[in-house]
């Protein structure tokens, strides 16, 4: 492609500006970036399900919640360090994803959408009602430890910034590779045409479940980071609206496109903060901006593009 180099330059410049952000932004804006980072992880994980596999999931906050509550519970009850809880809550959320998806994943588009909305709501109601005495009801769980990394306790927004964005970077790195692998292609195929994918020899049912599992696991890990950052979690942080927000990020940013999803996160999480000057009209501007962005970029800001195989020339016999 003609602008491959230009793109690389753009990405590195962006990464550099971002990595040095805590040096010139005040703690409020750094914390906004932390919020953006958390949602970026959530949106990237939903992107696997919604953008790559094409499964309409509008209940992603449920897996976010499973991860957050798992970590919070293990940390407050058994004193498990919060970063140790990270893989555990990833696994628990991944299993939750599998269990949820198993009976319903074959439903078509909008029917799957409402079922996932339902799952999210059922979970939220369970959390509020203190199911099995684990979740603390409407109060949630409080007193969650701050993460400790190599003996260093992470407290300030500037410190969280590197933890969260470090995790974002790892996520992008792994997901980008995954996208360009046999697994990633399989998701493309089943999104494009389920029958043809199955007819080409792809176990579509299994890949749909895998997509849910990976997406849910990552959302669960984002939940752990969230729990440790807020140090208190309660059901209202995992409402239907949160699922909608993550859904919007993926579609508006450009479903299936990692850079697009990141840009979408900056806009959807950043704009309401940028609009604070409008006081109580800020969400009005936000709604308007959302419609306008969609109208002017109907396929998302950075739409999905077919893959290019750089090494193709060398492959030719």
């Amino acid at each position, binding site marked *: 492609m003609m602008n491959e180099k230009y793109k690389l330059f753009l990405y590195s410049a962006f990464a550099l500006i971002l990595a040095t952000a805590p040096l010139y932004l005040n703690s409020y804006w750094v914390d906004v970036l932390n919020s953006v980072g958390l949602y970026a992880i959530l949106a990237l994980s939903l992107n696997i399900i919604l953008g790559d596999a094409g499964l309409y999931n509008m209940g992603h906050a449920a897996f976010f919640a499973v991860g957050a509550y798992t970590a919070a519970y293990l940390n407050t009850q058994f004193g498990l360090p919060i970063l140790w809880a990270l893989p555990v809550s990833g696994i628990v959320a991944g299993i939750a994803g599998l269990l949820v998806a198993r009976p319903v994943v074959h439903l078509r588009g909008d029917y799957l959408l409402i079922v996932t909305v339902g799952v999210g709501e059922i979970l939220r109601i369970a959390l509020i009602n203190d199911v099995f005495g684990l979740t603390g009801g409407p109060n949630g769980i409080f007193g969650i430890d701050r993460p400790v990394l190599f003996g260093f306790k992470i407290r300030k927004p500037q410190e969280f910034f590197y933890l969260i964005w470090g995790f974002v970077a790892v996520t992008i790195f792994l997901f980008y590779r995954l996208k360009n692998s046999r697994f990633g*292609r399989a998701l493309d195929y089943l999104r494009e045409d389920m029958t043809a994918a199955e*007819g080409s020899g*792809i*176990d579509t049912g299994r890949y749909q479940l895998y997509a849910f599992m990976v997406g849910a696991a990552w959302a669960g890990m984002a939940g752990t980071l969230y729990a440790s950052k807020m140090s208190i979690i309660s059901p209202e942080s995992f409402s239907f609206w949160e699922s909608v927000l993550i859904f919007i990020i993926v579609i508006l940013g450009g479903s299936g496109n990692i850079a697009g999803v990141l840009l979408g996160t900056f806009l959807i999480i950043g704009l309401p903060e940028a609009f604070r000057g409008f006081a109580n009209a800020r969400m009005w501007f936000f709604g308007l901006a959302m419609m306008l962005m969609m109208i002017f970029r109907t396929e998302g800001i950075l739409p999905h593009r077919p893959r290019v195989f750089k090494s193709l020339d060398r492959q030719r016999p």
Partner: protein
Amino acid sequence: MSLLSIRNLTKRFGGLTAVNKVSFDVEEGAIVGLIGPNGAGKTTVFNLITGNYRPDEGDILFAGTSIKALRTHKIVSMGIARTFQTIRLFQKVSVLENVLAGRHCRMKAGLVAGMLKTPFEKKEEREALRYCVEELEFVGLKGQESQVADSLSYGNQRLLEIARALASEPKLLILDEPAGGMNEQETEALVGLIGKLKGRGLTILLIEHDMSLVMRACEHLVVLEYGCKIAEGPPETVKNDPKVIEAYLGAD
């Protein structure tokens, strides 16, 4: 033993019996044509073989094993690949990736290998790419790897479907109206391609309305009408069968 053996296959949709007690065999290395008027149940037979539909009665044996209860992707990995009557390519995806879809079931790298790009995964990807490029060249689509599938001409899309099917290294290739929408030149090239496929030792089962192609390419024909088999045999014999002539020209 025949490669594919259809036994008393029956499929009903509500009150309509689309396929009615059909039996026939496909010998290894043969090119068999499944013909009949529109609505005779040919594509339904294909869909039954490839596991898109479940038969109500009867059995399908592939190399001696019953495949009637298997799911489509499993059947593909056993060695039956197909093309579709209405082209079903991954339209927004590149030509090469369409072929890679067929290669999928011969590859092993999974989720973790994909994320970590293990040496095994890299090697497998390299080999798969090479294989798929070769298949594209084989069907005559060399140099079009990076194009998006829906930008290809109709005839080339049919060829791409064949390349995708070939990438799964099938023993049996099922072609549903491969010449549909092709012009004369392209059809001619297709006949050549089918010959080349036979040369590779593939067994082919095809549906086709273009009788000249059928007569030239096939060694054995099975004729369906209203879901029933009405004739079977070498093209010359079938062509002169009064029941076949009646079916095609109409009774009145």
